[in-house]
């Protein structure tokens, strides 16, 4: 058992808790924070790849243990429900939030499998796996990243301490501190920046012609059948045999057989007026 020392500056002993102790604690944090400045080009490269995955429909799967587990939840909610108004919601989940699966897998297969199992069962090849660890020495994080790599996910790990301990991944961002609390504090900034800059790349009208506000492409679609209320069934021009999708044709004078330019489910212009054009 423990008891309280004399924490009052008025006591006879040496004051334990005073402003100087707080200032020393803050000062200890300064060097590690510079790591992000050096790593910024690497962070930007990660964001570009993450944006490309999101643009193609990929989702983000985040995991970690302890405080890193709470960080995994933070990253997921950051992408799913952005604090900046007007930013698009991106699909993201934290594996640690499902305590039923976590304890179930842990009990049956061992705790080292708690992230690998759901990754094998739930992840798609186009997804992103983001792991957080203060020091890289977590068997379940390593197993999770290995499972994600096997499936073809983009793998990113935020680690700390000795870079040699970081789990294998496509991208490894290591905070240079042996103190897990300081590592975490820098990682919070790193994942905030990852979120923000992924959106910058996602919103830039890049090679894939994605839109500024919704990242949807405008694409020509052929109208198969007009429906009531300004709706129609249409198939992508590039994939005539694909399943028909419901679109709105309220803004255009569409007829069956014509091709329209569709953006965000709305036909925004006529491309050809009918099958006779072909």
């Amino acid at each position, binding site marked *: 058992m423990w008891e*309280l020392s004399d924490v009052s500056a008025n006591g006879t002993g040496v004051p334990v808790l*005073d*402003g100087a102790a707080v200032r020393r*604690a*803050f000062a200890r944090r300064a060097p590690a924070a510079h790591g992000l400045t050096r790593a910024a080009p690497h962070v930007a490269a990660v964001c570009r790849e993450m944006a490309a995955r999101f643009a193609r429909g990929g989702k983000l799967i985040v995991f970690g243990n302890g405080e890193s587990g709470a960080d995994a939840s933070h990253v997921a*909610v950051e992408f799913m429900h952005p604090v900046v108004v007007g930013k698009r919601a991106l699909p993201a989940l934290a594996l640690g939030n499902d305590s039923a699966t976590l304890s179930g897998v842990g009990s049956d297969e061992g705790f080292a499998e708690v992230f690998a199992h759901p990754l094998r069962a739930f992840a798609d090849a186009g997804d992103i796996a983001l792991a957080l660890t203060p020091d890289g020495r977590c068997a379940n994080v390593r197993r999770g990243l290995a499972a994600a790599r096997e499936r073809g996910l983009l793998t990113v790990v935020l680690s700390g301490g000795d870079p040699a301990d970081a789990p294998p991944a496509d991208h490894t961002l290591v905070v240079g501190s042996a103190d897990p609390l300081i590592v975490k504090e820098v990682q919070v900034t790193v994942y*905030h920046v990852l979120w923000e800059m992924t959106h910058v790349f996602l919103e830039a009208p890049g090679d894939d012609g994605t839109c500024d506000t919704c990242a949807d*492409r405008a694409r020509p679609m052929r109208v198969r059948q007009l429906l009531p209320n300004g709706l129609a069934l249409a198939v992508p021009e590039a994939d005539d045999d694909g399943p028909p999708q419901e679109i709105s044709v309220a803004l255009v004078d569409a007829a069956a057989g014509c091709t329209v330019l569709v953006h965000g489910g709305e036909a925004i*212009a006529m491309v050809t007026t009918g099958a006779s054009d072909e």
Partner: protein
Amino acid sequence: MSEVPGEVRDLYPFLYERRAAEQDAGALTEEVVRSAREKAAGIAALRREIATADADRIAACAAAMAKRFAAGGRLFTFGNGGSSTDAQGLATTFLHPPGGPAAGAVVLPALSLTSDAAVVTALSNDVGFDVVFARQLAAFGRPGDIAVGLSTSGGSANVVQALEEAARRGLLTVALAGHHGGRLAQLACLEHLFVIPSDSVHRIQEAQTTVYHVLWELIQQALRAGRGGGR
């Protein structure tokens, strides 16, 4: 692919045009790198500002919390969204200190009120979201315990209500806020309030993390010294 009519180009220029910077993918990356570095510098400056302005008050808060823990008090934490994960991180740091038993840190009783989806959804559905933390404190809280609420805006109604409930029940009340402190800055019953002077939710959360980590470090120092230990 068919030709796109000119009027569509005029209506949706972003679909077809690229700004000069984006013609060169490198220019965009350069911009992102510059921005990331600005943010790194921003949080470093913010931490320096807090260390200068609030060091004595953080020390006093740590002393008050350590005193409560020493007398058998427990810690309850709460917040919304990203702050809910901070509440969880804060609680687990006290309950399961970094490094595990080998590190020798004092294990302290702590619970995040954000972790139980059944309780949070039941209270939200049946009563209202504003009471999700207050009701839990009413059930768990005892005089001598500690309540720590996190809100970047300082305006979260459920955090404000919980701190009011905590004060009524004799818990030590601590809050971390941002911007100008919002409603928390007006809360007379609140004993310790740390307002992170920033308008960025992200920088506020990053600085709040440091504040609660430093509180934990100081409390550990106090309690370890008390048991005659130390690393």
